[in-house]
Structure formats: C-alpha cells, structure tokens
C-alpha cells in the first residue's frame, strides 16, 4: 500500500484519496468562446510529466493538490487546495 505525507493530517494511505484530475486554468464562464471552451475541456497534450492534480481525502473531505509524475507515479509534493494555491 502507498502512503502520502499530508501536512495537516499526517501520513495517510493513498487509498483514502479520490483523484479528481489535473488542474487546468479555467476560462471565464461569461466570455469564453466555443473554441477556447473545447480547448479547456478536451484538447490537451497528456504527455508523461509532473502535473498538479486535485485529490480529495475522503474521511476528512479536505482537498489537496498533488504534484505527481505520470510516468513513475511518484508524488513529489502535497499541499492543501486553497483558492489560488495551485503552482
């Protein structure tokens, strides 16, 4: 079993977390064009890389950003997902 070091809640099993996908810069709802919206929703490089992802810790409901390498599955950094915190 894999464990993750999470500052506020300590060392937790990865199986307690739910993956919610990579963080992508959201376009503004009111002004976005169809082309930009489809780009945001669908068209990505999706290459093996370190990406910032949203994960929720189910028992506490707390959301985290994981910086994870999608080639090796190594989680490089974890920090709480407060607004504007994604790096």
């Amino acid at each position, binding site marked *: *079993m894999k464990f993750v070091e999470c500052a506020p809640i300590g060392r937790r099993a990865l199986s307690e977390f739910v993956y919610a996908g990579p963080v992508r810069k959201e376009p503004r709802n009111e002004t976005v064009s169809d082309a930009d919206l*489809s780009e945001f929703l669908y*068209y*990505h*490089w999706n*290459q093996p890389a370190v990406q910032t*992802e949203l994960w929720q810790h189910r028992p506490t409901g707390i959301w985290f950003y994981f910086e994870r390498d999608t080639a090796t599955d190594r989680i490089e950094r974890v920090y709480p997902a407060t607004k504007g915190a994604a790096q």
Partner: protein
Amino acid sequence: MPLGLLKYAWKSPESMPRFFPDETPLKKHYDAVIIGGGGHGMACAYYLAKEHGLTNVAVLEKGYIGGGNTGRNTTIVRSNYLTSEGVAFYDESLKLFEDLSDEFDLNIFYSTRGHYTLAHSDSALHTMRWRAEVNKFHGIDSEVVDAAHVKKHVPYMDTNCGGHLPVMGALYHAPGSVARHDAVAWGYARGAQSYGVEIHQKTAVTDIRTVGDRVTGVQTDRGFIETPRVISMVAGSTPTVAAMVGLKTPIEIFPLQACVTEPVKPFMDTIVVSGSLHVYVSQSSRGELVMGASVDPAQLHSTRSTLDFVEGLTDQMVDLFPFTSRLKIMRQWAGMSDLTPDFAPIMGKTPIKGFYLDGGWGTWGFKATPVSGKTMAHTVATDETHHLIQPFSLDRFERFNLVGEKGAASVGH
C-alpha cells in the same frame, strides 16, 4: 493442417517454414507507414493490401508484434453498445471476427459464450433495458433477463451476492465471445506479409516530419523514411505520437489491469460482467479464470501492476463466486488504456494532411480490431472517411458532438 504437421515429425524442426519471414532492411520510401504492430496496425496493413492494392507499406513496431494492449487484453468481443453509432460499428466487427480463422487458415479460438451484464440496482436495470431496446432496433441479439435465468445459466454464482448487492437481472447478449488475442494479430500480420507488406519489429518512430500541413516522412531509431501517409495505431502511446505532429487530443492514459487464476475444470461457459461490483470474468480454454476490473484511479503512462488491484478485485469476486476464495492468482499484468471522455474511439483524418489517427481504444478496442483495420484502410486508400467511422472524428469534441458510450463501456470491456 494436422496431416501437414505430421511430416515435420521425421524432418529436422529447422525445415519447418517460419511463421514470419526474416526481416529486410528498411526502404527509403513507402506509400504508407503504419505506426504500431498491434492488432489494429496489422489489420489495417492487411486490408490496405488485400482490398486496396496498396502493398508498398511498412508497419513499424517498437517492441514485438502484439506486445501492446493486443496481447494484454481479456478478449471480450460483443456488440451490445448503447449508441446507434457504436452498435453499427462493433456489430460489423463481430461479423468479421466470425470468419477470421478461415480467412487466415489459423485458429483464433473464436468461442461464442453468451455475455451477461449484471444489474444490482433499479438504475442499472433501467440502463440495461435502454441498451436492449437500442440493440434490438439494430437487429442485435440482446435482451433483459431475470435473476432466475442468470442463476440457471451461471452455476456457482451467488446471485444474492452475500446479501449486500443481490442480482436483480441482467442484459444478456448471446453472441458475446472470446478469442485468442495474439492469433488475431499474427493472422493479420502473416496475411499482410503475403501481399508484400513489410513488418519491422524493434523499430521505434521518434518523430514525424511535416512540410506545411502535410506529412512527408517519419524518423525512426533505424533512420529516416519518406512517406506521404502515416497512420498512428499506437493505443497507449497515442498522445505521444500525436504530439509529434503538434496535435492535442482528449485521450488520457490510465493503466488497466487484469489477472488469471490457476486452472480449474470447466464450469463456466459464459462471460459475466458486474458494473456495480466493478469486475468481470470468463474461463479460458485452459481453465483459468480471466478477471478484470475498471481502469486504475489516476492517469499513468506505465504498465506496472499493483497489489491494490488484486485485493480490490478478489474482494468483489468472492461475493459473486464464493468458491473462488480457494483459488490462487497465477499472473497479473497491465496495459496502457487510451481513454476518451465519451468512451468512443477517435478515428480517421486529422488537420495534418496524410496523418491518420486510430486511437482512443481505452478498454474496449480488441473487439474492434477487424472493423478498425477495414475502415481505416478504406479511409487512407480512398481519402474518403468510411461512413461507419464518421461519428468518431477527432473534431467531434470541437463541435461538442460526443458519442456517449460510457453506459456500455466503462466496466464491461
């Protein structure tokens, strides 16, 4: 054929003809280059040569024939999908599958089993009814059956599921089948070679050259090849190959794992899928239980396997088939699934002229091997998109015109 084999009993084994001829050096120019020597690549090469007379074709495979998802899948072939586009497409494939052993003069062990998708809730039963109606409308043998029917035809199943998720009914699809996956790739490969197509294993494409918006050649680890047509049939490597021509896609890579138990006497001649329990199982001709589940929880470009997977799967399997608690797992493995947001493939032409895409096969592309080869060959040779694959074009996402196959493809592959 068995008589033909007999003569080698007295001769030296070396005198037996090799299944594939020795490899030749790469040529400088081909009329078409197929990237990926899985079932799809081989089928496309075969139909390009056989039906369209295009024989100056090379298939480039970075590993060995069928070593990708083709040789890793659980070989379920069925056509009881949810959308009209999907049903028409997969049904054509099923029909082609039925004749492949004869066409190849090679036994692909195509075995029609009957396919049950269990419903453990009202909402699941609702989706089954919907699927059955769509299927019947298209002339597909598909019906909703009750729990008693399941109990009768799948002995040893605890339809009460240990009391926690009783089986309420199932979608039954009589033509559901399994086949020998490698043999499908080998049969197409040998067939393609007999028409003069070249297959180069251990040859990786590292870049694709374009001039303006047109393909002019591919760079490989064995040198440069000129070609006006490149067909990408690389499943789990699709994002990487598409990026070589500057194309973004909605395809995300997730590992999909499977495992087999030790062999036991034949007791199950059907295929059983449970969406609610996230598991499916069939018994191979060797007696092993072939078992699988949904994809891993997060994106990953790797074929590593995990203990979490086996633990999760067996936990559910024991509810459904209590006696399996006494069986040992023999092998487990993973493939890289190329998932799309609507659980339908991405096929056909792209904004880059001469670059054709066949990907987004996720967890469901083995059954599409014959029809993909045929429709892609048609599209490449005539430069007209085959009508069966028009709904699957890459630009459907720009038009927000998705296919919506999730209800029929997320657990049952």
